[in-house]
């Protein structure tokens, strides 16, 4: 008979009591499905109706802001013409001048500072959401295509790390819900794969349009972890990982979500 040392026996006991071990494999590209496919037919219809979809209230407002001048500053449209078709599908991306990783909100604020001599808009303000939704809506139907090599590589690794790290009082990782348990029910919800392709999105629970960071803060709070601040670099790295695991998925902003 083999006798276990007390330490080994303890380790075996701990292993037996802890939740089943989780994998560390990424979501297979062939399985990728939009959050849209997990919605009820009524909610899908609301998203598809470009009139009834209240997200377009922000898109309209963003279009107006895009075309108007604030003080002496040139309007966004004066440099970008009618718009930026396809641009949003490539974000987050590295800013060539600074080497920083910027998400779409960050890029828009960067343009305000660098090219318009205006202060950055507050994250989650109606104006920044409106501009972001307007620019993102110009990529509706465009497959996500972010780059994760070169200067983006360390950000990708940080983001992936955040996704796979268990956190909060519930000690759960994004991966455990959105890779290992998608399609299953959690309270009244069906867990989707946790893609950001619909954001900024109109969540019925919020009764408003909100950013991807607001959604991620809700998931962090849901496992009773301390949410990061809006625009926190850790969330931008995470956003890069989310976009890369959704590469090829069509953009849907402004989507409707529960």
């Amino acid at each position, binding site marked *: 008979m083999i006798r276990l040392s007390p330490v080994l026996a303890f380790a075996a006991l701990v292993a037996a009591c802890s939740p089943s071990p989780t994998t560390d494999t990424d979501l297979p590209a062939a399985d990728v499905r939009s959050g849209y496919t997990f919605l009820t037919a009524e909610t899908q219809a609301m998203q598809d109706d470009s*009139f*009834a979809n*209240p997200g*377009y*209230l*922000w898109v*309209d*407002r963003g279009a*107006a802001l895009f075309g108007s001048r604030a003080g002496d500053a040139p309007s966004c449209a004066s440099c970008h013409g009618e718009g930026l078709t396809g641009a949003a599908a490539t974000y987050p991306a590295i800013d060539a001048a600074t080497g920083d990783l910027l998400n779409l909100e960050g890029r828009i604020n960067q343009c305000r500072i660098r090219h318009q001599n205006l202060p950055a808009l507050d994250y989650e303000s*109606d104006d920044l959401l409106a501009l972001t939704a307007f620019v993102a809506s110009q990529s509706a139907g465009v497959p996500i295509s972010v780059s994760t090599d070169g200067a983006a590589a360390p950000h990708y690794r940080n983001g992936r790390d955040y996704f796979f790290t268990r956190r909060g009082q519930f000690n759960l990782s994004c991966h455990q819900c959105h890779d290992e348990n998608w399609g299953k029910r959690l309270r009244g919800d069906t867990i989707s794969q946790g893609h950001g392709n619909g954001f900024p999105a109109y969540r019925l629970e919020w*009764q*408003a349009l909100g950013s991807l960071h607001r959604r991620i803060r809700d998931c962090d709070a849901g496992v009773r972890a301390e949410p990061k601040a809006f625009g926190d670099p850790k969330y931008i790295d995470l956003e890069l990982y989310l976009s890369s695991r959704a590469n090829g998925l069509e953009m849907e902003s402004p989507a409707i979500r529960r």
Partner: protein
Amino acid sequence: MTSIRLSVPQTARKDEIIELKALIQHPMESGYRRGSRGEQIPRNIITRFECLYDGELVFSADFHPAIAADPFLKFYTRAVRSGTLEFRWTDQHGETWSDTASLSVT
């Protein structure tokens, strides 16, 4: 800055029943919710909606706290003559927002 979206056909045949749609950005805060510090969030709602066809009231609605944010209305009227449709919302404080669309009847 309050966004409004209207959907009104540009043209219609005389006596045709036309569909009108109106969406406005508004929080419709019910007054029953509490904030993160337990304080009551004050009620802030639109109380009245009116649609005027060349100045004549053709549709109206009274709103109450149970109506969701960004209220969306869809209703019908008969196209009787070319003219202007005005959509008007009034909140509990008497502030109003309005937008118009023109319809040409052939």
